[in-house]
């Protein structure tokens, strides 16, 4: 499809502006020549109907949750309620300036205040900061809190963070940013943290352990209390990566599992849309002994009035401008109000039921590396099909032909030819059955007609793309002479 620049034609323009209604001087008087732009720049010249057709055509080449099933493991692609989109566009929210007098934005402050309270209740924490913009940003804030805590206690020798080999890539990347060396702890045969390996790694040099629970295999860390004791006895802190919190709401809380620091992904668990890559929101929460290290400012309430508290001398500081991705936070707030406490538990129970059901239907057709109850997602291996020369990548591409977004593939790294499926609670039984049928068909095709799978996809806007050349000879923008 042509780029918008290739549809550009001199003389066309969509948006018209009013004339200047104040007495005006020549621009050269206000912007002297030595400050003025001398080089050209190119933006599209296009009329409004053509602009709309262009972006509509692009949208048709994209798969969203509303288009169909999106079982992208670890991403919790659940339905994004429409009402919440409308609410975020109410003028009192969309037109609120973040530096307005606090008395003029009490509605916004109330939402932030209530979200701190409700997320704390859901996770068993004391306080949350809504500032981090995404999960990885929440991790960064959480690890800064970890470091600030140890340093405040003059415990300066803790330079290492333990992370399981099944963890998201953001965990080690965040730890490294904060200056920690990463110690990788391996998983045992049940897919959980290997307790003996953990005992060998733990020492007074360890600042903490980062854990996703259920982990990225979709399996609950059954020995979580033992893990917690090992880490705490050595003076470390326990960090909860909330990417998989959709499995446990109302059932068990990270605070009760011994976690000290938590981040949540509002764009996963709390139904806010992911926008093709963002915006997300990654609030960070802590137990009482760490509350003073949270990012500043915090929202507080006095005599029915909400205000920002800036006087936080031990705070790690500011993580972003203003107070977080407010428009995302308010959608998550509306979601929690819609579901209520019991509803959130039903979300988790149904997401776990859907995952176990789908796992049951698929386990005879793909290798299932860990045969036990899963939580909200499960991981298959395409190793049987690989023996016939068909890779997991091939099968993922083939799934697109059936109108589905592929599951997450080649992650976690500890499962060969991994296929990670997360159906979420917003899929019907009918949708799950249809998807299972398609997957089973592909598994059979891989054996009977391997070339058919290897050449997939067929029904997408483009056929399989050459990613290697893209990286070797990068073309990262359009230019006129190309």
């Amino acid at each position, binding site marked *: 499809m042509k780029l918008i620049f290739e549809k550009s034609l001199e003389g066309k323009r969509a948006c018209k502006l009013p004339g200047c209604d104040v007495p005006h001087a020549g621009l050269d008087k206000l912007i002297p020549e030595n400050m003025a732009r001398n080089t050209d720049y190119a933006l599209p*010249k296009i009329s409004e109907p053509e602009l709309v057709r262009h972006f509509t055509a692009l949208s048709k080449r994209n798969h969203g949750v509303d288009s169909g099933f999106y079982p992208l493991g670890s991403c919790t692609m659940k339905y994004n309620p429409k009402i919440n989109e409308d609410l975020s566009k109410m003028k009192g929210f969309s037109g609120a300036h973040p530096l307005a007098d606090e008395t003029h934005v009490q509605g916004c402050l109330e939402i932030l205040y209530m979200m701190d309270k409700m997320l704390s209740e859901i996770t068993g924490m004391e306080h949350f900061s809504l500032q981090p913009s995404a999960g990885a940003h929440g991790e960064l804030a959480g690890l800064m809190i970890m470091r600030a805590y140890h340093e405040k206690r003059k415990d300066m020798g803790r330079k290492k963070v333990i992370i399981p080999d099944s963890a998201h890539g953001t965990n080690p990347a965040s730890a490294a940013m904060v200056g920690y060396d990463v110690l990788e702890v391996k998983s045992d045969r049940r897919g959980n943290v290997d307790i003996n390996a953990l005992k060998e790694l733990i020492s007074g040099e360890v600042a903490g352990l980062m854990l996703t629970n259920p982990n990225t295999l979709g399996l609950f860390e059954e020995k979580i209390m033992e893990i917690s004791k090992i880490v705490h006895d050595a003076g470390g802190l326990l960090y909860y990566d909330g990417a998989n919190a959709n499995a446990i709401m109302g059932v068990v809380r990270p605070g009760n599992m011994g976690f000290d620091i938590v981040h949540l992904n509002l764009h996963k668990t709390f*139904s806010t849309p992911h926008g093709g890559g963002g915006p997300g929101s990654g609030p960070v929460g802590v137990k009482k002994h760490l509350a003073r290290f949270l990012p500043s400012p915090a929202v507080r309430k006095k005599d029915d009035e909400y205000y920002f508290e800036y006087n936080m001398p031990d705070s790690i500081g500011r993580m972003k401008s203003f107070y977080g991705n407010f428009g995302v936070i308010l959608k998550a707030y509306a979601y929690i109000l819609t579901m209520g406490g019991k509803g959130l538990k039903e979300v988790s129970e149904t997401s776990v039921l859907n995952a176990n059901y789908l796992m049951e239907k698929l386990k005879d057709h793909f290798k299932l590396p860990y045969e036990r109850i899963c939580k909200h997602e499960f991981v298959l291996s395409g190793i049987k099909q690989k023996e016939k020369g068909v890779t997991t990548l091939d099968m993922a591409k083939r799934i697109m032909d059936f109108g589905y977004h592929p599951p997450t593939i080649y992650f976690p790294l500890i499962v060969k030819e991994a296929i990670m499926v997360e159906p979420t609670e917003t899929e019907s039984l009918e949708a799950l059955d249809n998807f299972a049928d398609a997957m089973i068909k592909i598994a059979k095709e891989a054996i009977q007609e391997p070339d058919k799978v290897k050449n997939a996809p067929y029904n997408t806007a483009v056929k399989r793309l050459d990613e290697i050349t893209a990286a070797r000879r990068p073309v990262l923008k359009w230019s006129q002479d190309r």
Partner: protein
Amino acid sequence: MSGYIPVTKAQKRHMLDIIGAETESSLFSDIPGDIRLKRDLDIPKPLVEMELYVHMKKLADKNISSEDKACFLGAGVYDHFIPAVVNHVVSRQEFYTSYTPYQAEISQGMLQAIFEYQTMICSLTSMDVSNASMYDGATAMAEAALMAVSAARKKTVLVSKTVNPQYRQVLDTYAKFCNFKVAEIDYTGCGHTDIGRLEELSGDETAAAIIQSPNFFGVVEQMDEAGKVLENQKALLIACVDPISLALLKSPAEYGADIVVGDGQALGNSMSFGGPHFGFLAAREKYMRKMPGRIVGRTQDRDGKPGYVLTIQAREQHIRREKATSNICSNQALNALAASVYLSSMGEEGLRETAGLCVQKSSYMYNRLLELEGFDPLFSGHFFKEFVVKSKREVCKLNKNLAKEGYIGGLHLGKYYPELDDCWLIAVTEKRTRKEIDGFVEVLKNEAYI
């Protein structure tokens, strides 16, 4: 049962039978009993859509909206015009309900849109490479500092005190934990970064200097001179810019910037109490492999048809883990898409007119304010859409009076600069009319408030 959960009770029973599980709770038998929650979550009782709407409307009505009062408050977030097409495009579910485009063949729409976005950002900034967006201007700036520290293998980053104070706070947070030092450069009586001080402070350990133009005071900086100083010192220049101003002001490449960052809210994103907005980050080609975040590249499919993919991923956390250039994963793609639609809708001509209106209207208002008793100029530098005036009357009180009359007043600069306690930072975008500006001035003249 919630309307968002499409599985009936009978279906659940059927599914449990297939699984071979007795009850739903038996699917949680791997969670030790003693840590399980033995009560309901203490969360208000659920609201249905009708009730939710009323509740949220009540909260929204507690806020003052720029749609009801003329907004002269800026300081990093601005009340610019947003054409209707922007919201219509970003409200297409195929865009907003999709995830990061890991699987390219089924995500060509978003990938091509990001490629177009990267092209527009490169064009505006005259840089070679743009990434797919950052969280906001402040974090884009902090990540640019990390990039510079890594590229130059030096540990100090200089930052002008005229850079947005909240951006500097974020930079301080990152510096404290990510192992680099920050030193601040003072400003002159013109409202410019003190270039003499920049020269004195930059030395062998200086990785980069960060200068914002137009700066937090609205003043256009002497970027040419800053560029020359840093070139001599072999340190990088990180320019933090207002994207709309680039329609008129010298492009960062012209004054020797190596990395360009800024906040993109002004490009088609509503103020939304400070987010979601997005940050942009663009750089010269030699820094491409040091860049954080997603980058989209053009390639071909098996039939030779052009297509787009996420690329140069060997920098990123999901491949490189602890050796990644940054930990960023989610960005602000939908807000960047809004910017693409905005810029496409405006075109070069529209953007230039927008920038021109900002300059003319802010200049008109500046002069009108200085005609009044009790208001004096502070800085002599040229400004773009925001300016500072000194007031003999208490700034907070002025804002309170203005609010009563339907105006959102400017920023009390004392909040961030104790030495500027009697100063007022006022933003005038293309949306402000002469009637609003004159009305604002009339309120200040109103004897009832003096």
